[in-house]
C-alpha cells in the first residue's frame, strides 16, 4: 500500500517550518530525507507521527511507528518491557525480535545498562514490533560511533529486507542516507521544501565499501554535497 503525502506544510508560532512537501512512498520502499540542521526534518517526521498536534488529525491515514534520535526508552523498564508496552505481540514473538537484533541476552537489562548502540537497537525493535505501515526513523544512529553506526545500519537493513514495510529515514549524513535508501530526498533549509529527489539503483544487500566506490554513489554524493553546501550559504 502506497503512502501519499500531499502538500504538507507546518507553521509553528507563525514561523513556517516547511511548506508543500509531497512524497509518494511506495509499499516496501526505503526513503531518506537529507537536509541541514534546522531544515525541518525532525518536525516533518513529528508531523507525520501526529506529535505536533497542530493538525486536526494525522496528515496520513496510516499507522506509523518511530525510532527517535535519543532512543526515548523508558528508563525504569527493562528492554523487553519497553517493547512489550508498545505492541500487541506475544512474549515469544518479542523474544524472536531480540534474537534477530542480537540482544536476547540483554532483554532484561535496563536502558542505562545498555550501550548507546544497544539502546538504539531496542528502539528499532520497539518500532518494528508495533504493527505499522510506515516506519519513521529520526536520525537514530547520529550519536553512535562509526563502527556501531555501521553495525546498526546492517541490523536495520537485514530486518527490513526480511519483513519489508515502508521506511522514511531522516539524516544529515549523506553517506548513511545513500547506503540505506532506494530514494533520497533533499529538504532545503532555504526553500523549506523538498527540492530534489534521487533514485538509487543498487540492489540490496549492498556491500558498504564497494557501494562507496561505485559511480552511482559518487555522483549522487557530489550532487547532494553541493546542494547542502549551497543551502548552508544561502540560508
Amino acid at each position, binding site marked *: 500500500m502506497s503512502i501519499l503525502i500531499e502538500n504538507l506544510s507546518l507553521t509553528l508560532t507563525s514561523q513556517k517550518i516547511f511548506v508543500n512537501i509531497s512524497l509518494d512512498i511506495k509499499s516496501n520502499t526505503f526513503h531518506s530525507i537529507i537536509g541541514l540542521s534546522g531544515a525541518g526534518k525532525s518536525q516533518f517526521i513529528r508531523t507525520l*507521527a501526529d506529535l505536533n498536534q497542530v493538525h486536526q488529525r494525522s496528515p496520513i491515514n496510516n499507522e506509523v511507528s518511530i525510532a527517535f534520535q535519543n532512543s526515548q526508552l523508558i528508563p525504569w523498564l527493562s528492554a523487553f518491557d519497553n517493547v512489550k508496552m*508498545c505492541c500487541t505481540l506475544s512474549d515469544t514473538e518479542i523474544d524472536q525480535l531480540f534474537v534477530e537484533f542480537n540482544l536476547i541476552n540483554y532483554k532484561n537489562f535496563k536502558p542505562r545498562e545498555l550501550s548507546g548502540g544497544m539502546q538504539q537497537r531496542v528502539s528499532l525493535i520497539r518500532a518494528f514490533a*508495533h504493527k505499522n505501515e510506515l516506519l519513521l526513523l529520526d536520525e537514530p544512529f547520529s550519536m553512535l560511533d562509526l563502527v556501531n553506526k555501521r553495525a546498526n545500519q546492517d541490523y536495520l537493513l537485514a530486518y527490513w529486507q526480511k519483513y519489508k514495510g515502508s521506511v522514511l529515514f531522516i539524516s544529515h549524513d549523506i553517506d548513511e542516507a545513500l547506503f540505506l535508501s532506494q530514494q533520497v530526498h533533499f529538504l532545503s533549509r532555504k526553500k523549506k521544501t523538498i527540492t530534489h529527489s534521487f533514485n538509487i539503483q543498487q540492489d540490496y544487500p549492498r556491500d558498504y565499501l564497494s557501494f562507496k566506490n561505485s559511480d552511482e554513489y559518487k555522483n549522487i554524493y557530489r550532487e547532494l554535497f553541493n546542494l547542502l553546501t549551497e543551502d548552508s550559504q544561502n540560508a
Partner: protein
Amino acid sequence: MRKWSFLGLLPWIIIWEVISHFYIKDPGLFPSFFEVLKNLVQLVFVNQKMGPHLAASSFRFLVAFAIAAPLAYFLAVLAAGQKVIRFLFNPIVTSTYPLPKVALIPLVLLFFGTGDLSKIVLIGLGVFYLIYINTYHGAVFLMQSPMQDVINVYHVKGRHFWYSFLTKGSFKSFLVGAKAGAGYGLTLVVVSEMSLSQSGVGYFIWSAWDSFRILDMYSGIFLIGVLGFIMNYFSDWLIDKAGTNE
C-alpha cells in the same frame, strides 16, 4: 557517604554538652546530652515507661501512613492521567492544603471523637497532602516529557500506561512526598497526642512538662528526634535505590 551522616550530629552534641556544662546555671533546666540519653535508655529499656507510649504513637503513625500514602499515590496518578479526576480533586486539594492541620483538631474531634481515630485522621491528612502534591507533579512532569511521544505514537493505554508508565515513573516523586509526609506526620503525632490523648510520646512529653519532669521531657523530645532521623535515613535510602533502578 549517607551511612556516616549521623556523624554530622557530633558537633551539635558537643555544643549541647558545652552549653549545658558551662553556660546553664541550673542543669535541671537544660540537662546534658548524655544525661538525656541515659534517661531515655532507662525509660525505654529498663523501667519501660516509654514502651506503651512509643507503641501507641507508632500504631497511630503507621496506620495513618498505611492508609494515606497509597491513597494519595493512587489518586495523584489518576488525577495526572485523567481529566475528570483532576477536575474533581485538584481544586479541593490545592485549596485545603494551606490550612494548618493543627487548626483542624476541633473539627476532627467533632467528627471522630477523642479516641485513636481522630489522631489517625489528622496524621493521615498531613501525610496525604504532601504525597499527593509531589506524586501529582512527578506524574505530570512525565506526561510533559519526551517520553510522552512514545506513549502517543504507540497508543500505549490501559495497564501499560497506568502502571508501567505513570505509576512506576512517578514512584520516585512519591518517595520524596512520602519522606516529607512522614516528617510532617511525626509532627502531627506529637501535636495530636499533646491535646487529644492519654497515651503516646506526645502525651508523655506534655505530661512530663506539666509535672515538671524536665529530664523526661527532654528524653521524649530526643526520642522524636531519633525517630525522625531514622525515618529520614530510611527514606533517603529508598529514594537513592529508586534512582539507581532507573
